[in-house]
């Protein structure tokens, strides 16, 4: 993605709303890989992400922030996409660790997805294998900053470039084969 200074197109209400959104980010952590283990320390008493207004949510419908915590295979990617599409706008995605950036240590596996942002609009990556809680909290504050400035516009991009994302997703996953092993 090119770093182009965008003109802030948001209205007043939108700006106020973004302020609120940044201070109340409810997250859904999709525990695909080892990154998930770093979340409990960031939630509990040492780092306590609730003071930032963040908290875990049970379903994608309620969540604003989608954490993809680790490497993705073709199998999990499909779930990730379903889950992402269930979330309500505006929604943000953070990719955890090098696996989501370039496949990490599994980069040459036949079933690993190497670049998450080909399939979903990632607002922020956290480098590291794995990122420590400090890095995670750092990323959260960074994301909050981005939201306030209106830079975290991954959900808009996804809507605008939906065809492109869909194409990539289909290329990796193939057509969905409807097969009901119980009833058909």
């Amino acid at each position, binding site marked *: 993605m090119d770093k182009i200074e965008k003109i802030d197109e948001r209205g007043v209400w939108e700006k106020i709303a973004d302020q609120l959104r940044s201070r109340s980010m409810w997250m859904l952590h999709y525990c695909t890989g080892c990154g998930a283990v770093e979340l409990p320390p960031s939630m509990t008493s040492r780092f306590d992400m609730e003071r930032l207004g963040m908290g875990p949510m049970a379903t994608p419908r309620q969540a604003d922030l989608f954490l993809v915590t680790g490497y993705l295979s073709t199998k999990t990617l499909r779930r990730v996409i379903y889950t992402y599409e269930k979330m309500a706008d*505006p929604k943000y995605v953070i990719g955890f660790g090098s696996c989501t950036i370039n496949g990490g240590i599994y980069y040459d596996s036949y079933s690993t997805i190497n670049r998450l942002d080909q399939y979903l609009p990632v607002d922020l990556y956290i480098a590291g294998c794995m990122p420590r809680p400090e890095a995670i909290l750092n990323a959260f504050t960074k994301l909050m900053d981005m939201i306030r400035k209106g830079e975290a516009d991954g959900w808009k991009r996804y809507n605008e470039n939906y065809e492109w994302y869909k194409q990539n997703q289909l290329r990796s996953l193939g057509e969905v084969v409807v097969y009901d092993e119980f009833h058909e």
Partner: protein
Amino acid sequence: MTVLKVAGIFLTAFFFGLTFEGIGRKITARVQRRYGPRWYQNFIDLFKTLSKHGYTHGWIFDFGVIMALGGIIASLGFVPVGGIVAFPGMDNFFVIVYLFTIGSLGMAMGMVGTGNPWASIGVARALTLMLGYEVPYMISIGSMLYFYRTSSISAIMSAQGGDWNLFKFPIGALVALISLQGMLGKEPFEAPIAPAEIASGPMVELSAKYMGLLMLMNTFMEFAEISLFVDLFLGGGTYFVFLLKYLVVWVLVVLISSVLPRFRIEQAVYFYWTVPIILAFVQVFMTVNGFVF
């Protein structure tokens, strides 16, 4: 005048309800040795959810949410908040209790209307839990109604004077407190909305403003239920005294909930139908036979 009073009750419920919820979160955090969110965090959460663009599953979902909030707002109007009594004499206990159920029914209907089975399971659990806590609650309050020969909340509130029902009916108060824990859906009676188990139960398909409206409904409901407890057992009082008492009860509830695990739903019902119901009948026995302190 009535309109002003009703508006006052709504605004109190809105501001102090959300504020106290924030304080409750702070207290829980402190119990867990965390720093915790800011006290106004719940306002942010509420307005954030309202600002989002959500999904709806059809008209029953929309209607259910409106009915839930509307029902609770309606019942809230009858609850005396300290000195503010909107409908003196007409704040009948049973009217309030049954008006609550409009909200619950609306919520249950809307949520099951999403078509998600988790929601159905959550609602089924919530209703079952309701079967548990309402019965001892209503019996123990019933003994008070019998004692005061009135079922008007404000009349009972003012009849206490300085002599709180908490001391007159200690066992009844205990039962009501245990039931309150279930009504508020706090631990250990949290099974209907178990987030990790059934994906937050009824709320599973709630997004954006629907979530916000239900959060508001939940706040109002908590406010109304705790207010009832304060009115009935702690003698209400003037506006600020009332809020103080409210805060004390709320903190107590939050403290209890923050240190307890979760009952399974049948354990909860079994519990309610053994200990509190027996206690409630002990209270009834004492009241009927004149052992009121």
